């Protein structure tokens, strides 16, 4: 082969192998994600990420979401690829995504592996703390090239969270039982963000040191820890239609302080279980349940 041709071939190879803008980032699980260019067609399999993309004004690049991505209302105009556990891969592929956001809590590992085989880059997110939520917002800002909006969104969140902290500071912490699912009883454990949200709202989750994220729990043990506030997750709002919380069953436990004091509340699950811009909404709601006297 002539030297000129070799050179031309080498140049061509170089162009193919290393597109000018290719870059590698690490996702929240420490995996390397290599992208040819800043993603323009994003599919979010995580409702929280969908909320963040909209809050940062990056929705023009969002081409797909799940059935559970119901907030903000405008998100529902984006095509859905199905559920979080069983997204439809064919539908997903036809959206031609150059990046998919997924989570290790709620999506299946198998889905992530299948996307990897289809050579669609997957960015895994994982947030169990308010600090991690803020980190996630920064990361989504970087991936959607909306970094400029991050300080506004995060700053507003921090300001509201600080306001709640101040409002509940004068009051003694109340013992809180949060019921994610009543039967079997499933509660937030050591690794759940709810545990931290309750703490910021001036409470102390009675299951804060148990299990992992959402362990099953014995009703007896819950009663024995004498919760002063009981908060029941209401599954009837948003995309989940699993059912309304049933406070009557709890009202029968008349020797529990929370029931005696009438501090039995029902809370919108879709706000409390998303690590996105609505975290302060959840904290404010919890604080009003735990310390209503602070907001009179």
């Amino acid at each position: 082969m002539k030297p000129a041709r070799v050179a031309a071939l080498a140049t061509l190879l170089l162009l193919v192998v290393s597109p000018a803008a290719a870059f590698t980032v690490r996702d929240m699980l420490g995996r390397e994600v290599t992208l040819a260019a800043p993603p323009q067609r994003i599919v979010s399999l995580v409702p929280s990420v969908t909320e963040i993309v909209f809050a940062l004004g990056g929705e023009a690049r969002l081409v797909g979401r799940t059935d559970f991505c119901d907030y903000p209302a405008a998100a529902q105009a984006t095509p859905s690829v199905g559920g979080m556990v069983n997204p439809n891969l064919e539908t997903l592929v036809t959206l031609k995504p150059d990046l998919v956001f997924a989570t290790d809590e709620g999506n299946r590992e198998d889905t992530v592996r299948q996307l990897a085989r289809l050579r669609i880059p997957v960015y895994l997110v994982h947030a169990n703390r308010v600090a991690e939520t803020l980190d996630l917002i920064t990361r989504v800002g970087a991936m959607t090239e909306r970094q400029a909006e991050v300080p506004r969104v995060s700053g507003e969140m921090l300001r509201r969270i600080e306001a709640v902290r101040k409002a509940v500071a004068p009051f003694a912490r109340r013992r809180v039982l949060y019921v994610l699912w009543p039967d079997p009883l499933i509660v937030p454990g050591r690794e759940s963000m709810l545990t931290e949200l309750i703490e910021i709202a001036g409470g102390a989750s009675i299951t804060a040191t148990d299990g992992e994220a959402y362990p099953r729990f014995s009703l007896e043990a819950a009663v024995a820890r004498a919760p002063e506030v009981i908060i029941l997750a209401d599954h009837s709002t948003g995309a989940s239609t699993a059912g309304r919380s049933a406070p009557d069953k709890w009202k029968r436990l008349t020797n529990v302080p929370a029931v005696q004091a009438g501090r039995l509340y029902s809370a919108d699950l879709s706000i409390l279980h998303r690590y996105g811009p609505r975290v302060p909404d959840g904290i404010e709601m919890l604080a009003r349940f735990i310390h209503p006297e602070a907001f009179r």
Partner: protein
Amino acid sequence: MSAASRLALALGILGAVLLVVIALALFVGSAGLSPRAVARALAGRAGAESIESIVTLQLRLPRVVAAVLAGGALAVAGVAFQGLTRNPLAEPAVLGVSSGAAFGVVLAQISGLQLSFLEVLGVATFAFAGALLAAAAVYMIAAVPGGLSIQTLLLAGVIVGIFFTSAITVLISIMDYNRLGGVIYWLLGNLAPIPATSLALFAALALGGSWLILRSARELNLLALGEEAAVQLGVDVTRLKRRVFTAAALLTGSVVAFTGPIGFVGLVVPHVLRGILGQDNRLLVPTALVGGGAFLLAADTLARNIVAPAELSVGVITSFCGAPFFVYLLRTRYRATL
């Protein structure tokens, strides 16, 4: 007609049906590709990065192969269990063997085995061990001097099935809420595109298991005359039982490992074939392999499209077909034998 030509005819017809179902499965799906686009992808004339190529070759085709293998393996396992127990109602799910394999897989999932190639082997080993354990338990509970009685066998299957289902429930109840959705989804029995290396391993196990059973088909025919008669005709009954039980457990275990617990394929398919071809296991094993593949692929194509863009679990569809079929068989043909 001689047995050989009947087999050739039956295989020809079933093969044609299978081809039609394969074509249907490749051309229909929620991506809404035009038939021309699919054909272009199949002919290799679409770019590797094109949507039609990715959907057809990387999503639909591996799933079609997985469905055909799983359906074939389950139907052959059904023929084997039925021949072995001389009970037309025996089937991997009914006998609790699927539950045993499922327990093995959930155990493997919990202990954090991920799905790289070697670890696929690990999951398959867990599934096979579970299936073998369940099959052996059923057999030992039901075995009495003089053979296996139908009632005892079915009851033993139910009991073993319940035991392993409970064992799965124990694992589920100590599992974190966040992982629950995925495991329950898997337990419903779903087909998915499987990577090529796993598919090759699956094919080897399914075809190997089927071959072991085909080799025993003649002896299984003799066993149908009764154990004593089979012994008098020179069959080593103990060895035959051990070999066929192991092979059927291998088939069930590999299906559960690579797809999930899918029920009733091993009941419906052999039954329909027996109605057409008679009792000869030498005809039933190969035709069940092809017919089972066509049946499960048809069910999966339905599952994929009936509520598109959402998907049903194929296990739900086979159970919806299989459970009424089981009741029908109980109420009509096998009333007297029970």
